[in-house]
């Protein structure tokens, strides 16, 4: 088992790679792993809102004025974010200022904002996206057994570890109490009480509570959602094919407190005990 790690997106990403082909010498496996780490670093540099030279800051400076071109992977990220916004009734929203106030053009692969005061914060979905891209990189080089995790709250398991049925992930201090087993799947955990110093003790807020009336009636939202902030502590784990979709849904479910009808069939959600 080869372990690699990097610091990115304000947290630590770690990979455990199993050599499972004869020609996967340790040197080659490390080189493959570093390519995947490089993908994490690349997405960090592109998606961080804390560095003005990131692509995201370029987007936030520019997209209200003119359409901004996207590569295919970034387009897919924004597409998924919009899908979760719709299906969650606005409980997950990467935009600030107005609810989902952005237009994706799938012909030209461009994105523009509908208002001057819109900005995008990709938060956890960016971390999940980086994990998805790293996993794709590993698969592309023939790695079939690996565990990738970012900040211990999101991860992806490729194949199975040696001698086990899946990659077992503990979700509580007692590793046997709450677990998920991953086989070619991803997970994301959201906990609105994990940062007690955040406002109201809850670092995940309901984006609908901050929306204007006009924005709340935006096209695509079938019903006007409630405007209450969640007050109780909620912990949710979502599993499914994509870490970024799991990340987005785990955030939405903490806000919603229940699984809505639009929750995608390929994913599974479980509310955890409030105190780990």
């Amino acid at each position, binding site marked *: 088992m080869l372990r690699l790690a990097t610091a990115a997106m304000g947290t630590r990403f770690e990979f455990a790679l199993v050599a499972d082909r004869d020609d996967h010498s340790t040197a080659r496996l490390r*080189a493959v792993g570093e390519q995947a780490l490089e993908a994490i670093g690349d997405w960090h540099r592109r998606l961080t809102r804390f*560095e003005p*030279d990131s692509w995201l800051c370029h987007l936030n400076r520019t997209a209200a004025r003119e359409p901004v071109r*996207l590569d295919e*992977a970034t387009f897919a990220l924004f597409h998924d974010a919009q899908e979760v916004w719709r299906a969650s009734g606005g409980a997950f929203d990467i935009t600030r200022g107005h609810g989902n106030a952005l237009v994706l053009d799938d012909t030209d692969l461009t994105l523009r904002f509908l208002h001057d005061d819109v900005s995008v914060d990709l938060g956890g979905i960016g971390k999940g996206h980086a994990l998805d891209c790293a996993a794709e990189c590993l698969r592309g080089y023939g790695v079939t057994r690996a565990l990738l995790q970012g900040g211990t709250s999101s991860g992806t398991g490729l194949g199975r570890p040696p001698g086990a049925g899946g990659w077992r992930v503990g979700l509580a201090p007692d590793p046997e109490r709450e677990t998920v087993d991953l086989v070619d799947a991803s997970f994301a955990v959201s906990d609105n009480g994990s940062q007690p110093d955040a406002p109201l003790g809850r670092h995940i807020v309901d984006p609908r509570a901050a929306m204007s009336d006009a924005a709340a009636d935006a096209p695509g939202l079938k019903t006007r959602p409630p405007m209450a902030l969640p007050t109780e502590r909620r912990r949710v784990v979502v599993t499914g094919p994509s870490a970024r979709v799991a990340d987005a849904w785990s955030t939405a479910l903490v806000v919603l407190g229940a699984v809505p009808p639009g929750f995608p069939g390929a994913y599974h959600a479980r509310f955890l005990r409030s105190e780990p």
Partner: protein
Amino acid sequence: MPRPPHDRRTFITQTVGALSGLALMPDPSWLLPTLRSQGVRVAVIGTGRQGRAILTELQKIPQIEVAALCDRSAARLETARTRARNAEVFSEHRALLDARPDITAIMVATPTHRHRAIVEDVMAAGRHVFCEAPIASTVADCHAMAAAAASAKTVCHAGFQGRSNPTYRRAQPLVRTELRDLVSMFAQWHRKTTWRVPAGAGETEQEANWRLDPAVSTGLAGEVGAQQMDVAHWCRGSYPTRITGRGGVRLHKDGRTVADTIAVDLIWEDGIVMRYEATLANSHGGQFELVHGINGSIRLAWTHGWLFKEADAPTQGWEVYATRQDVLDQEGIVLIADATQLAAQGQLQSGASLPHPSLYYALMDFLKSVTEGAPVACSFQDGARSSIVGILAHEAVTTGETVVVGGG
């Protein structure tokens, strides 16, 4: 025993372009430059990591259409095409030049030792060329490429990014005006990585890992050091005359002979020394350059830059309006064009850094030369000199001997 001099006549008699003419309060358009021309078609040859970085920056420029991509590896081309979906793909650069006469500007980001053949073909085809730094892996290739560029009728831009970076352009004249007499210089590049990449389909491990191949690699000194050494050349307006170096494999004992850790001293004729350290075994401190003078120090870190004044140094009028930050327990003056205006716009976040990476500014400078006739920010002649210093520094590391640069 000192090594023989390297082309004294062309090396030592030429210095970096004029240092005068840059104001202390530079034009804010340096930070967010725009192109006036529309529909400029470009191609990228070499779509590895650096080629993809170029594509990321080109995507931000709406006037630019990436019309073609070229690489020997189909897998790399496929990945690159996700950032330029309408680009035509080629596996051989001559086919690209023949098939797409509408493409006027070409960025070359192949392995360093392949630059010369491609760049010379691009110039011969009458296209503008941006060549990644270092421009070549041998002294002979550097001279040949500089000579070819001198007779070319198109724009030939060497990708030494410091000369286009607004923070570095802000700092460059200050090295003389604010620091006064130089004391010493230091630069480092620390990153913990093997520098090894997995070979793709149809590619040998040796081809993929050309930076670890002693037959073609210029090592850490050439491949990453030349960029930082060029900053010193540009700021000083001159080049070192002697180079000493040492290095070894400290961490990655995987059979490689190219050092994963080096220390180099670039020594100028007046005795000023720039110590350069690079390693693949430790990441502390990352990448930065330090210039020490009798009146203060300048610390440059590519997206950031600060001036630290000595307590007894005279205060200049412009400092009253400067943005200041605490850096490494010292108050530094932020070296960013129009920092006050950017702060008012909320664009100076977390450390007053640039709104784009250095590569973006280098590409913009190149494209402005192509479309608007702007002066070339880094000529092939300047690029060749800094590439040669990197190559000779690698030679000093490899041989353990003092290399004389134009000193015979």
